[in-house]
């Protein structure tokens, strides 16, 4: 530990030789991977909060169909006009918020946070590189992302509002809605996709080319592996969606018919286009990305959890090789399961059998990954700090989400569950208490490296328990609602189908009081969840100034290279040249004086 503190002073010393690059160069147009990572991180967190707030408006409407939203309703009316007349969220606005909640959460919050922010900050550090392979491409990637984000954000305020076709933007609906929201969405998506592609090229090249001497493939931390595979998924799955987006844009703007078949009649009038297209084509191209995309959301999260579990159990990850191979397998198979989102579009039996089978096959590597992480606990010396709590909670939460993917994966049970709240609950368990918890864990874990200060443990624990309880109260009831037949994307929360609706008199499947009461319950739980985020926000900002200072460069006594740098790492990252001597998780090595052996610590045998 003495050694690391001395590198600290050394770095501080060498830092003085750098000339001051000026505020703009240092923070806005920086090409340093750490600055870009932090830029991504804050933008993504802001969008995460924004996406959540959109959902709170929707949850209000689900719980109280037709009633004006207190306070916020007025604000929405003055900002957005008639779509929020009298503070009531109209179906148009509900659909716009729904589509944008999905889009923002997936493309503007979780991907940038999990992949771009953590990836940018941590991957070069963990492989012992001085920066990304293409720093300027890295900056361009962030700028494309920012432009895409601005376009998405602005689209709320254009006449007619944001896109209303769901995050899946199925044609013909997305094309037929006369407002311009969809056009903005598509242009925004083209920017976001371009950003991800640039990022992916950069990540892959960095991992392949810039690993420090001795950092062989199987000495790379698990986190780097997950990012590497994620980058490949982005690189190869996004372009077909970009193609599809361009086609839909041309449909929308130039009136072509890629996704519009002949003979449509909209509002009683023949739809005036040439026809001859296919709505299924859009779905294929969308889900060709859409399914691999969900692994883009989960793999980096698994990587974060792996790092934190290893460090806080003080022992090597169990089955490191199986983890790596499983991640590779997930990456490959994720490209050939996409049509399980399309079982009920009338597809033939042969093809649906194929996709059911691949869907079951892909669950196997997921099971292996989770099993390895669970088994890693055995024999550990577990420290329950905040990052570890979130990382531990990830495991059963992802487990629930993953397991409930199984009934959806068989077309026979999907027959009943398709497009119900069961699906909503399934994937939120994976992405919200799953991925988001892992990301929280990552923030708490790497914060000391980024700032030189810890986040508050007390606030952290309040945040953790509030979030854990809140998340489960929000999403667990949705399984029941889904089983009962409650459909998703209903702007009135299913009131049309409720027994209280007089038109449903005598209808035996009308929603009973319980189903409708659960709506209200979930909304209350969501409020609790929102309140539980307050300590986090306070914590992030306050700890920068008065958090407890780290006592060394390696505050968690971790083995990977990201902790063998000065704190915070200077431009160029490492104070001296790094040579890697061993695997990533050499914790509690028998006979070693400390319970961790950093990857770059000289080989004791060689020293003799």
């Amino acid at each position, binding site marked *: 530990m003495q050694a690391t503190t001395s590198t600290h002073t050394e770095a501080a010393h060498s830092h003085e030789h750098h000339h001051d690059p000026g505020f703009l160069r240092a923070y806005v147009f920086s090409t340093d991977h750490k600055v870009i990572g932090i830029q991504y991180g804050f933008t993504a967190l802001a969008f995460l909060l924004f996406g959540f707030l959109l959902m709170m408006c929707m949850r209000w409407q689900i719980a109280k169909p037709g009633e004006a939203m207190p306070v916020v309703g007025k604000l929405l009316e003055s900002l957005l006009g008639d779509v929020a007349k009298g503070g009531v969220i109209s179906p148009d606005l509900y659909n716009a918020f729904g589509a944008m909640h999905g889009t923002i959460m997936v493309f503007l919050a979780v991907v940038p946070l999990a992949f771009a922010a953590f990836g940018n900050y941590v991957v070069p550090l963990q492989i012992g590189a001085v920066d990304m392979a293409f720093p300027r491409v890295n900056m361009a990637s962030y700028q494309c992302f920012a432009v895409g984000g601005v376009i998405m954000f602005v689209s709320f305020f254009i006449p007619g509002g944001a896109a209303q076709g769901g995050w899946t933007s199925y044609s013909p609906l997305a094309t037929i809605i006369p407002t311009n929201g969809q056009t903005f969405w598509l242009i925004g998506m083209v920017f976001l996709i371009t950003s991800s592609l640039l990022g992916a090229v950069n990540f892959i090249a960095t991992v392949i080319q810039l690993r420090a001497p001795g950092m*062989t*493939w199987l000495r790379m931390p698990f986190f780097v592996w997950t990012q590497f595979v994620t980058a490949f998924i982005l690189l190869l799955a996004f372009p077909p969606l970009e193609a599809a987006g361009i086609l839909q844009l041309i449909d929308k703007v130039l009136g072509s018919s890629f996704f519009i078949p002949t003979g449509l009649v909209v509002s009683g009038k023949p739809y005036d286009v040439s026809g001859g297209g*296919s709505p299924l084509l859009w779905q294929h191209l969308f889900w*060709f990305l859409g399914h691999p995309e969900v692994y883009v959301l989960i793999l980096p999260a698994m990587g974060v959890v792996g790092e934190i579990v290893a460090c806080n159990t003080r022992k090597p990850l169990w089955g490191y090789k199986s983890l790596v191979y499983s991640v590779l397998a997930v990456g490959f198979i994720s490209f050939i399961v996409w*049509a399980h989102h399309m079982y009920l579009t*009338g*597809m033939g039996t042969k*093809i649906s059998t194929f996709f059911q089978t691949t869907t079951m096959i892909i669950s196997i590597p997921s099971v292996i990954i989770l099993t390895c992480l669970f088994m890693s606990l055995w024999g550990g010396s577990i420290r329950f700090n905040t990052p570890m709590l979130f990382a531990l909670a990830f495991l059963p939460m992802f487990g629930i989400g993953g397991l409930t993917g199984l009934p959806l994966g068989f077309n026979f049970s999907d027959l009943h569950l398709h497009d119900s709240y069961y699906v909503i609950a399934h994937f939120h368990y994976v992405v919200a208490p799953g991925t988001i918890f892992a990301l929280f864990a990552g923030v708490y874990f790497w914060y000391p490296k980024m700032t030189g200060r810890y986040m508050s443990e007390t606030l952290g624990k309040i945040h953790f328990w509030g979030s854990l309880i809140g998340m489960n109260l929000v999403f667990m009831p949705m399984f029941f609602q889904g089983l009962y037949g409650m459909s998703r994307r209903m702007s009135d929360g299913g009131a049309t189908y409720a027994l209280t609706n007089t038109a449903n008199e005598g209808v035996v499947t009308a929603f009973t009081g319980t189903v409708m009461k659960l709506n209200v319950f979930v909304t209350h739980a969501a409020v609790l969840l929102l309140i539980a985020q307050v300590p986090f926000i306070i914590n992030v900002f306050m700890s920068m100034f008065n958090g407890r200072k780290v006592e060394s460069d390696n505050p968690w006594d971790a083995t990977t290279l990201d902790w063998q740098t000065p704190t915070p790492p200077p431009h160029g990252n490492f104070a001296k040249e790094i040579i890697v001597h061993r695997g990533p998780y050499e914790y509690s090595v028998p006979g070693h004086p400390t319970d961790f052996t950093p990857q770059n610590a000289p080989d004791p045998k060689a020293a003799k």
Partner: protein
Amino acid sequence: MSHDHSHSHGPGEACDHGHDDHNSPEYIQKTIKKYMMVGGILFGGTVLTVGMYYVHIPSVAITIAVALLIATIKAGFVAGVFMHLSDERKMIYGVLACTVFFLIGLMGLTIWAMHDFPFFTLVGGKPS
């Protein structure tokens, strides 16, 4: 993807190709001849394809197959010689192999899915 490098060498060690030969003037001179030849082949292939169109082979299937075959051969020459793929590093083959795998998945499965569609389409609004 790339596990063939599980015991990768540190920098400074010998690499898997005699790289310097490839930069020698004699070698480049030789390749220039190759480039000219490939240029010729590409021209010839184009003439052949267009010629075929004017000859008008009765079977559409054969026309398509032959035209695509010629195009693939031409593409092979461009990629192999102009883009030096015939003589590239393993890493790049790995990347391209993944790409080809996914491309086949994309094209093959969507086309299969569309063909395994048991239901008829409405043409001009009429069931056909």
